């Protein structure tokens, strides 16, 4: 790969507390 020249895109992140609402791929475990 050639060295990367273009700037990286900043990914905005939610706060740690806000992450709770983004349980995108969490699977409910079987009891």
């Amino acid at each position, binding site marked *: *790969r050639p060295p*990367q020249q273009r*700037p*990286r*895109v*900043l*990914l*905005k*992140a*939610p*706060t*740690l507390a806000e*992450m*709770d609402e*983004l*349980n*995108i*791929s*969490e*699977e409910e*475990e079987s009891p």
Partner: protein
Amino acid sequence: HPVNIPRKEKDFQGMLEYKKEDESKLVKNLILELKPRGVAVNLIPGLPAYILFMCLRHADYINDDQKVRTLLTSTINGIKKILKKRGDDYETVSFWLSNTCRFLHCLKQYSGEESFMKHNTPRQNEHCLSNFDLAEYRQVLSDLAIQIYQQLVKVMENILQPMIVSGMLEHETIQGVSGVKPTGLRKRTSSIADEGTYTLDSILRQLNSFHSTMCQHGTDPELIKQVIKQMFYIIGAVTLNNLLLRKDMCSWSKGMQIRYNVSQLEEWLRDKNLMTSGAKETLEPLIQAAQLLQVKKKTDEDAEAICSMCNALSTAQIVKVLNLYTPVNEFEERVSVSFIRTIQIRLRDRKESPQLLMDTKNIYPVTFPFNPSSLALETIQIPSSLNLLFLTRV
């Protein structure tokens, strides 16, 4: 069926490809169901962190911001979830503290920011993220690591707590001193059967166990120092608080026993190369209280010596120890009221809180100094025991 053709390590780029729909399986197998005591024992320290980062690198490589985001969110939520479920298990908490820190270090080491690349090999520099800047996610991970650290400290304190009074104060190991008990005092240990079973050795063994687990998990050395300092603080604070509340602990011989116990703790620090951790310094109030039990307490010169010696104790604490001081034999005397008054006058101008007891809930602020790894990502292989066959080395 794809045929697995063995490739040389130099052909790999240190990434792991996965399908979006396998992300939850990744979190489940690598975070939620991984037992630190089971398969994880034989893994290279920080392997879960490296695997997650290599997956992240691939999502970055294909320039899929959504995939990067969901992987980070699922990872963070997975770690939070396992810590909720097994938050009282020391090994689980220690394991995820070290892996969270390693993941955070990877995000820095391969961020492409020069300040984090100083120790990288040229090959490691080729492995930097190419499309996304994850600085904000690093902050979230750092917040998570702080949360895990506080949880770890709590779990460790819960294990140590029942050993402290018994091991540091009640149990006597010094021959010859223990024979003489302060007169007229009941032996309080005998009524509490369980407490009586812990000795200083129990504390040292527990510290050994904490230390070796953290080492096995690949915890950053600087972080181990902070954990141990915190444990020493709690040992010192709980011991001193009990001494300040119990007359039977305020004697010359107890002073001797405490100093011996402290020397053993110091020896332990030396043995583990932790003398620069600041742990010993947290015992200073206890050390001074033990010295206070042993020095002469009669003349003005004695008072002056005590005031300059006990700079880590508050006036309230010094006065309390002097008031509680109980002679062990007929050659000793109680501390006179006028001597205590002299001390109070001498210390009048000290600016300090009037608090008698130490705050056992105090937690020192934690930091996670950047600790890059020399490990070459392209050499990492995934043991089959992790059930991650759906990941493809790239």
